[in-house]
């Protein structure tokens, strides 16, 4: 995971303490220790950090063979639990495979698709997959299935199939852009 400069690793302790007050039950479990251990940068008052931050997440790894999708979910939960907001989750590269509703994870492994869907519903998150990356990996919604005359659509309805412009627009609109490489 790599944060934008001035990213989460630099947040002061005061931020977590402030924002967790309203949500003690959630943040007590999920507050990311990496954030709460930091002190403020020299010469910077806590006041300028005391606001809700908007995050966008880029997720690049294959859900079946990399840790990326799982790490992103944990980060997303910690972000929300700390009182911040997630503007959009953009799945790119092999990450688009998370939207494939045909995946059958082993019973003793976590069902990442199910967990993402539940988390996104609970917090009204926008889950998006890149259309170009999805098409070449056989991840098609009904529109694309019809356009390319393929056998079956397999995108879980909670995911929007969008263009790369949505990735850039999110990065422009957010305070922090975090990427989870494959």
């Amino acid at each position, binding site marked *: 995971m790599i944060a934008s*400069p001035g990213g989460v690793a630099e947040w002061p302790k005061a931020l977590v303490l402030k924002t967790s007050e309203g949500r003690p039950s959630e943040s007590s479990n999920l507050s990311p220790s990496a954030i709460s251990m930091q002190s403020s940068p020299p010469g910077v008052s806590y006041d300028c950090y005391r606001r809700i931050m908007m995050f966008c997440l880029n997720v690049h790894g294959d859900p079946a063979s990399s840790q990326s999708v799982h790490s992103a979910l944990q980060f997303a939960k910690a972000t929300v639990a700390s009182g911040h907001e997630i503007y959009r989750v953009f799945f790119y590269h*092999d990450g688009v495979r998370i939207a494939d509703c045909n995946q059958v994870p082993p019973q003793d492994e976590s069902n990442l698709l199910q967990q993402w869907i539940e988390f996104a519903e609970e917090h009204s998150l926008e889950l998006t997959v890149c259309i170009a*990356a999805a098409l070449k990996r056989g991840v098609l919604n009904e529109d694309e299935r019809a356009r390319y005359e393929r056998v079956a659509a397999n995108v879980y309805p909670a995911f929007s199939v969008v263009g*790369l412009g949505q990735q*850039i627009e999110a990065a422009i609109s957010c305070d922090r852009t975090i*990427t989870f490489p494959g």
Partner: protein
Amino acid sequence: MRFLYLLRRPPYSGSLAAEAIDSILVAGVFDQRVSVLFKDDGVLQLLKDQQGQLLGHRSVNKMLAALPEYEIEELFVCARSLAERALSLDQLSLPVQVLDEVGQQTLIAAQNVVMND
């Protein structure tokens, strides 16, 4: 806003490099100030005379050649990554600026957004 793409993957390891370049071009279309830092195996993307078709790919250096057309001309390479691979600037297909670690830190610190592959 200032966007930096930090590219560290080799050119023909799956489609990572090609898809990252797609994203760079879209950022260019959005009229952002985009720069690119090639680091680690990412410096191999810049090599001249690639024949991607032999591997069933588009040639990555030809895709990168489109960057100046999108007014993306701030291209940087990591000095250490070049040295480790015994590469010199005349083996690269685009004009780039070589940065040491301190230069890279300064570059990254000046960005609003860092995207990596």
